[in-house]
């Protein structure tokens, strides 16, 4: 009895503070401190984020457009981001405020998106602000008319610029043209000398008097002519004052035909190559591919694999022209077949993940409390049962 009495007294002693404290049970006071962005469930008394005032001005200062973002009531070093083209647009500049302002230069930028963030404050966004136009902030013009410029220059859009005069002389802000500045501006039988076209002297009477790549062009009825370039045709060379074709099927030489699609030119002959691979695969697969050249297996041919991250590796095919392609990552693999250092064929193999990227699970845990508690109670019952069974056994003994 004494023990029960003491127990009761102690229980009361503990009950008083516990029960008296119940009045303020709910209502968490969650802080919203930066970096500790608590997300309380019972967030009834959470401090609201503070507001800040943001203003934008664009002004002209000495011919330079200066844009100022003023952030008031937010302390120092608020983060400012300026973009063009909305929130997803290009960042034009970014930085922190100093003495409540953030400054940047630039003109003719319309539709600015300005975002200001600061620890403990609700972020502030502004959309549609424009900077001043560059023209509205232009310095006074250098000139109004040609007379304001030196005689060799003229006035263009308020600036003195050189008078364009490639073949002539500038006099009084204007270009006076010469008769000629090069032979091409004279007739075929004339040369340009001191900006005047004069008759050309006879240069040759036979091809032998000309260089190997020229021939003697004698006009009809004339005794002599000029050494002119031999007319060059396709895929050949000039030899002994005449054009001689090579007779190649293909080649890199000027004018030589190129091979049809799917073939490359090797030793002036068109050769075709091919790579046979599955076009798709699953990450982790190893695909067997076959390389051919002119319909035959391309044995010991070089091939290059470019993986989706841009990594390249070069290997050789086996004697049957086969090789294996390991798909280690998702994305497009490029396989290029080479012969004598030249790319014969490039194909693409797409590697997919086994399953598409799944959305991260929603942050809600399933309510397993009830089944778990049931299991716990079953456990207790089991333990008690075992203890009871043992105590009975003990009594029997």
């Amino acid at each position, binding site marked *: 009895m004494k*023990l029960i009495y003491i*127990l009761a007294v*102690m*229980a009361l002693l*503990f*009950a008083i*503070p*516990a029960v*008296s*404290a*119940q009045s*303020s049970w*709910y209502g*968490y006071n*969650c*802080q919203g*401190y*930066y*970096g*500790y*962005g*608590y*997300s*309380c469930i*019972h967030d009834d008394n959470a401090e609201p984020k503070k507001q800040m005032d943001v203003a934008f001005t664009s002004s002209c200062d000495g011919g330079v457009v200066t844009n100022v973002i003023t952030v008031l009531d937010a302390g120092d*070093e608020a983060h400012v*981001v300026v*973009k063009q083209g909305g929130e997803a647009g290009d*960042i*034009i500049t*970014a*930085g*922190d405020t100093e003495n409540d302002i*953030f400054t*940047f230069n630039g003109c003719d930028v319309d539709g600015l998106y300005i975002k200001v*963030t600061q620890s403990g404050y609700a*972020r502030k966004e502004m959309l549609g602000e424009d900077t001043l136009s560059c023209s509205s902030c232009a310095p006074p013009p250098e000139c109004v008319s040609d007379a304001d410029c030196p005689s060799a220059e003229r006035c263009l859009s308020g600036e003195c610029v050189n008078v364009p005069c490639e073949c002539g002389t500038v006099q009084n802000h204007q270009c006076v043209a010469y008769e000629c500045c090069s032979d091409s501006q004279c007739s075929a039988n004339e040369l340009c000398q001191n900006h005047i076209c004069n008759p050309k002297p006879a240069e040759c009477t036979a091809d032998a008097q000309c260089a190997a790549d020229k021939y003697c062009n004698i006009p009809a009825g004339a005794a002599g002519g000029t050494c002119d370039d031999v007319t060059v045709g396709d895929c050949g060379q000039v030899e002994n004052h005449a054009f001689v074709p090579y007779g190649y099927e293909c080649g890199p030489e000027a004018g030589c035909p190129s091979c049809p699609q799917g073939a490359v030119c090797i030793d002036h002959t068109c050769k075709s190559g091919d790579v046979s691979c599955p076009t798709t695969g699953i990450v982790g697969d190893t695909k067997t591919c076959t390389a051919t050249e002119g319909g035959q297996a391309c044995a010991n041919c070089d091939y290059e694999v470019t993986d989706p*991250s841009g990594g390249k590796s070069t290997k050789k095919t086996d004697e049957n022209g086969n090789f294996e392609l390991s798909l280690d*990552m*998702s994305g497009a693999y490029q396989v290029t077949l080479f012969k004598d250092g030249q790319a014969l064929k490039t194909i693409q193999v797409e590697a997919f993940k086994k399953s598409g*990227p*799944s959305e*991260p*699970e929603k*942050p*809600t*845990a*399933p*309510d*397993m*409390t009830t089944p*778990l508690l049931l299991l*716990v109670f079953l*456990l*207790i019952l089991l*333990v*008690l049962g075992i*203890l*009871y069974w043992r*105590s009975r056994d003990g009594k029997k003994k």
Partner: protein
Amino acid sequence: MESNSKLALVVYLVLAFLIMLPLLRPGYYLALDMQAGPNSYTDVQFSDFYGDVPSSYGAYFPTRMVMAAISDIISPEATEKLQLFIILFLCGACAHFSLPEEHGNARYFAGLLYMLNPFVFVRFLAGHWSLLLSYAIWPLALLSFSQFLEKPGERRPFVKSALLITLAAVSSHGVIILLVCCALMLVFHLLKNRAGLTNLLALIKPLALLAAATLVLNLFWIAPTIMLFGSTYAPSSPESYIMDFKLLAMDLPPEASIATMHGFWRYGFIYTKDVFQYWYVPFILIAALACAGLIALLRAKPHHALFLFAVFIIGFLLALGNGGPLSSAFTLFGKELPIYMIFRDSHKFIGMICLAYSMLGSYGANHVLRSLQRRKLAALAVILLLPLIYNFGFFNFLGQIGTTQYPADWVEAGRIISADPSETSILVLPPYLYSTYSWSNATQKTLPTPAAHFFSKPVIISQGIMMPHIYSDIKDVRGDYRAYIFKKRQYINNTAELLAPLNARYIIVLKEYEDADSYLWLFKRRGGVDNITLVYEGDSLYLFRNELVTGPLLASADAGEGGFQQLANVSIDGLSQNVSYIHINPVTYLITGCGAPYLFYATSAGPFMEFNGNRPEPWHAIASTFRFSGPGILSNGVFPVSLALFILAWLLTIALLIHPQKTGAVLLAASAVPLYILAWGDILGPHALGTLLAISLASAGIMFNHGYPKKASKSFLNIKCG
């Protein structure tokens, strides 16, 4: 093992399993102070072992080495869950088996309450696994210490006390609380009889030996911590800590909150009491049982009763911190002994209250059950239900937590980074130590830089806790440099160059933060940024690569005098990767050539880095630089100390357990040399060391448990017992 003991083990195993059920789904358990990911146990996570950072939170790298070894077998994800499961199990089992067998089934009350209480609940939600592991060890450690005090000359209590206190040092907070309890136990042991002074004199030698052995066992983390303390820790004022970590006036007054085992410095967690209107009913009955236990124990073992009562009172006063009668002492300690501020969160002392309730409650339950003539089983059922009802929130944690799978774009970014073999780092922006991650599958989404455990390369972590009154209490010149770059970002056009001294090859900008754009400007702007490539863009992140950075060692044309302010928008012409070296271990390199007069180590700015015995000069106050005069060894001077003391503690533990004869002792001592060489040479990395540690300690523990060697049990310290 007796069948009763087996049943108890099964009960706590099943309970721990049931509690862990919501976390058994695929994914990691991420919490306020708990990171986990596929790279949780890679070598880069052992910077405390390698002497890069102090082990100020305790001796947990050996535990993590063992976990690393386990992760090689069962995956990091399963290892994390196994770790939490074991901690929960140990809480119950250690409390249960720390009580005398005569208590019978009343011991279940202690085990259940010690395992299921608001303190464990909130620390589990916060991810304080090392504190909980230490807390789980306390009852057995105190039992061993009491046996040691009773029989100071015997070997087994001595060994068990030293090793269990060392195990509890997995949390520096936990071991200090345990030592407070041990001190209280010693005081009441001395007061037990009138011959207290004589008793004290007899105890001085064994106590000194125990203290010495425990200190030697713990030097491997204490010594590096002391060495690095001055260069890494910049304590704020006690007032700042008090303001930021003060007792919160939630729904209960602080005193009632602590007395009911509730309390945390942070808002937002939901306890069982918040959803159970009559929570105080089971609590009152638990408290009543504890009171009954106290009264019963006062008659039987008064000094023991007073000890447990003192644990409650001292725990209560210390937990009140600045809010209680010891507030002036709290502030004074903070000013005179800055390290005391590791207890800025004074609620950790609530663990002492849980200990007192569990032990006293078990005595009370035993007393009540013995006094009943019939319906004992029904009474036992009611008693055992009390902790379960008081804390039923443990089962599913009131929907507050779940497992989290990292987003698909994190996985893709991780794949790209891990394909890069360079020994470089990742800079994650915005650079907050704690941030909210919307994809975290928990109601509290604030996490401590999960990228550090997800990605395969070291993540440059911000050290700022960003509390209202304490931005950071860590000295972090590299963090200051990073902050400088971001502060001046509007005018910076050489981002890639500026990040070279941080060895930052990869930069991740997390999109979900509203100020992410502000950082993005440094890497992505119209016209591009020189040497910065956007490698990948996902739904939640950008991944950039700094093409200038390819490794941690750089050659510098100048000594880098002056502050880092000189570097903005100045081409660092004299900086190149023209250094040839051989990697020996993560903090030691054999430098064979350097293309400039100065060698620059971009990974650590620690004062104990040395090159051929020369200490570093600060390169523009950012990193370590050395004049290069020829090939030599670049190393961290803390690692050899930390490694030697770790091996010493390891071998001493084995020696204490198996008590070898002369030949065995010589062999044991001799094994230190190859162990040291192999670990220094990185042939034995943390995983291999963890495997060896687990096997060797398990073998020695089994031998110890089987009473080996028989002869060593008596006259261990040549002290007469009693």
